[in-house]
């Protein structure tokens, strides 16, 4: 075996052959890939659920399913998309694969724990789906499991909640692992301010995970207790208070949206400077804003509860705090734009997707302010406006950042290049479809169409038809993107070590990386986004070409 042989081909330890070499691996790269296939599969399933719902809503009245199926479908769609796609996607796949490489380490700090997280993830996923077929049918509570409905419905809520509990544990262990890795395994000479921004964002996310997830765990445990023993902690008839459930739930679930979006922002912060050939503007600002979002984002949970009956003071305070989160977020967006300003921009599919991200995410963020102000929220609460808003941030944001990360790191992970033209077409279709899909929902919401309803008044028909039409375009675009990536295995166009001119450490190792990541001691740059060498090389090559002519 030569030192540069990729981690795919390294011989398995004795007794571990074929599939076991993967299932029992402790190599962070292999675990990252195992997450990739698992998460990808779930995403496709949940996508189908979403599309089915949209088809049902395309015309008023019953179209292809009854109300019960609809309720189960949107719970399934929500649970999968949240717990099995947006939360784990970027940290588990790309974080596992690239965090150790970006800091010049061999592996994560606790490799066995890492494998355990993957198994917990699979177990949770399996239970979530199993609860669909066991018992009285899939829970119809939505992914928020609000009491009292989640306590009284006869569907199999306990199992789904257990699944969510296990998934939470998995994400917590990953966070713990990443924090320890960052603290203890940075290569010699890499100070905190020399860490790539993607790693920084994962570090901030991990803290949110560790601080917020246990609150969800205990909330879910209490739902189980209440279902089994009916103590009455949330039941007004017995002295309990359902609002407390909501407080506990959102104390996790609002920070969870930062668990979803921070790594996505890390990906974008990585892509923008590389394709602008320019040091990222305000490196420290981006780092601080990550931490700022992590802190401020933990204080705003109750903006989901303006209509639940809180005191006016609480409504005011939470509304104010919610606006504060916009500041660090805006710092990031301005940094990206300032980075591109006067840069030598080279258009590629990852950059294209990153730009789509910025656009869609800004729409999502700005409409978030509409929902953050108590006055307007009272009107829009639980309408389709909310559905459009969160799809813009979670799907337009994290979803597209995930696509961008896939296109950015694909050559590194597999050592092969995909077709650019198809990637552009797929991305464009997806973006256009996205806008057609969700913009009508903003309007529908303002007109008063509620969310989570299976049927609606005839006046909402046109908007829903348009949205459904956009949904199809969107799905076609996504399928094209995935098809293009998968086809690269067929065509096998070998990718160079550093196809984009990246400067972080993962581009200094062969594609795909060898088993021990680094063949020689990694060389740490004084500043991670220093493109002077890349630019000089490109100029040399050009000069060389011209002299040959």
């Amino acid at each position: 075996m030569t030192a540069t042989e990729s981690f795919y081909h390294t011989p398995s330890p004795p007794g571990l052959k074929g599939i076991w070499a993967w299932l029992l691996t402790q190599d962070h790269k292999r675990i990252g890939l195992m997450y990739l296939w698992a998460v990808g599969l779930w995403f496709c399933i949940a996508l189908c659920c979403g599309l089915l719902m949209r088809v049902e809503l395309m015309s008023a009245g019953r179209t292809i399913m009854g109300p019960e199926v609809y309720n189960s479908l949107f719970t399934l769609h929500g649970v999968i998309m949240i717990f099995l796609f947006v939360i784990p996607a970027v940290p588990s796949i790309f974080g596992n694969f690239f965090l150790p490489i970006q800091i010049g380490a061999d592996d994560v700090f606790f490799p066995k724990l890492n494998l355990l997280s993957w198994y917990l993830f699979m177990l949770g996923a399996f239970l979530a789906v199993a609860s669909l077929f066991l018992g009285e049918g899939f829970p119809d509570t939505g992914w928020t499991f609000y009491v009292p409905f989640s306590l009284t419905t006869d569907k199999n809520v306990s199992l789904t909640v257990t699944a969510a509990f296990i998934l939470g544990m998995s994400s917590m262990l990953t966070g713990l692992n990443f924090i320890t890795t960052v603290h203890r395994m940075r290569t010699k000479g890499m100070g905190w301010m020399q860490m790539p921004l993607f790693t920084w964002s994962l570090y901030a996310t991990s803290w949110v995970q560790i601080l917020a997830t246990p609150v969800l765990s205990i909330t879910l445990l209490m739902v189980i207790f209440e279902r089994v023993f009916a103590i009455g902690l949330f039941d007004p008839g017995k002295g309990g208070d359902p609002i407390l459930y909501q407080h506990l739930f959102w104390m996790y679930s609002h920070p969870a949206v930062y668990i979803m979006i921070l790594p996505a922002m890390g990906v974008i912060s990585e892509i923008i400077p590389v394709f602008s050939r320019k040091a990222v503007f305000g490196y420290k600002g981006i780092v601080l804003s990550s931490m700022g979002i992590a802190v401020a984002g933990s204080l705003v949970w109750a903006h989901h509860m303006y209509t639940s009956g809180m005191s006016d003071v609480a409504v005011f305070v939470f509304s104010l705090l919610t606006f504060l989160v916009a500041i660090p977020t805006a710092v990031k967006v301005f940094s990206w734009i300032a980075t591109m300003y006067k840069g030598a921009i080279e258009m590629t599919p990852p950059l294209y997707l990153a730009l789509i991200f910025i656009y869609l995410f800004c729409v999502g963020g700005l409409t978030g302010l509409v929902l953050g102000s108590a006055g307007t929220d009272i009107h829009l609460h639980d309408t389709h406006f909310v559905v459009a808003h969160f799809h813009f941030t979670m799907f337009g944001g994290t979803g597209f950042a995930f696509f961008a990360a896939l296109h950015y790191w694909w050559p590194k992970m597999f050592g092969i290049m995909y077709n650019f033209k198809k990637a552009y077409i797929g991305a464009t279709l997806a973006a256009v479809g996205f806008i057609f899909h969700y913009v009508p929902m903003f309007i529908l919401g303002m007109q008063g169409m509620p969310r989570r309803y299976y049927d609606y008044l005839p006046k909402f028909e046109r908007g829903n038809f348009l949205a459904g039409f956009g949904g199809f375009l969107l799905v076609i675009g996504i399928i094209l993107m995935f098809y293009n990536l998968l086809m690269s295995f067929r065509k096998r166009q070998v990718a160079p070590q550093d196809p984009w001119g990246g400067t972080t450490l993962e581009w200094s190792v062969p594609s795909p990386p060898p088993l021990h990541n680094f063949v020689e001691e990694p060389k740490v740059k004084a500043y991670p986004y220093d493109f002077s060498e890349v630019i000089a090389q490109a100029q040399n090559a050009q000069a060389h070409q011209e002299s040959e002519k």
Partner: protein
Amino acid sequence: MEKKIDKTGIRIGMWLFLYTEIILFGGLFVLYAAYFHKFPELFAQGGEELNTLVGTVNTVVLLISSFTVAASITALQRGKKGQTIAFLLFSIFCGVVFLINKYFEWSTKFHHDIFPNSETLQNGPDGLNIFFGLYYVITGLHGLHVIIGMILLMVTLTLVMKERVHKDRFQLLENAGLYWHLVDLIWIFVFPLFYLVI
């Protein structure tokens, strides 16, 4: 490739994990605080019905076991295997005493028809129902942690006997000990909340 054990790293990982456990209970304490605010008198009344003596005994038992676990770590670091084993056995024994005590306490309560959904609580005032609901949930969850801690100590004990955990490789014992301290620490919060409510 040389494989050094990074003790600090392992400790960081364990501390982070303990942190999550504290926040797990933190959620329950938040509930306690909210309901205490709502029913202060009834909580006090509920507290009077709990047996302070049993609670105190259990507190003492846990404190002692915490001490012996710490002693076992020191013993192991000094290479005294026999002492380590003795201290560990004693700590596990303390865990057993705690659970037995808890068992009797709970069963007396059951006897007096005080348990989730019992007639007395259902027909009594809401505050008492919530108080005892929280009592069962929190002490139950804590009891579960005691059991997990004991399992951890037993696993460590076996490994100490097999010399897989020894003078130069004591991280497992140290972490099991930390976990046990955590269980103790949480109890120190639980105890006044339920037994000493004024």
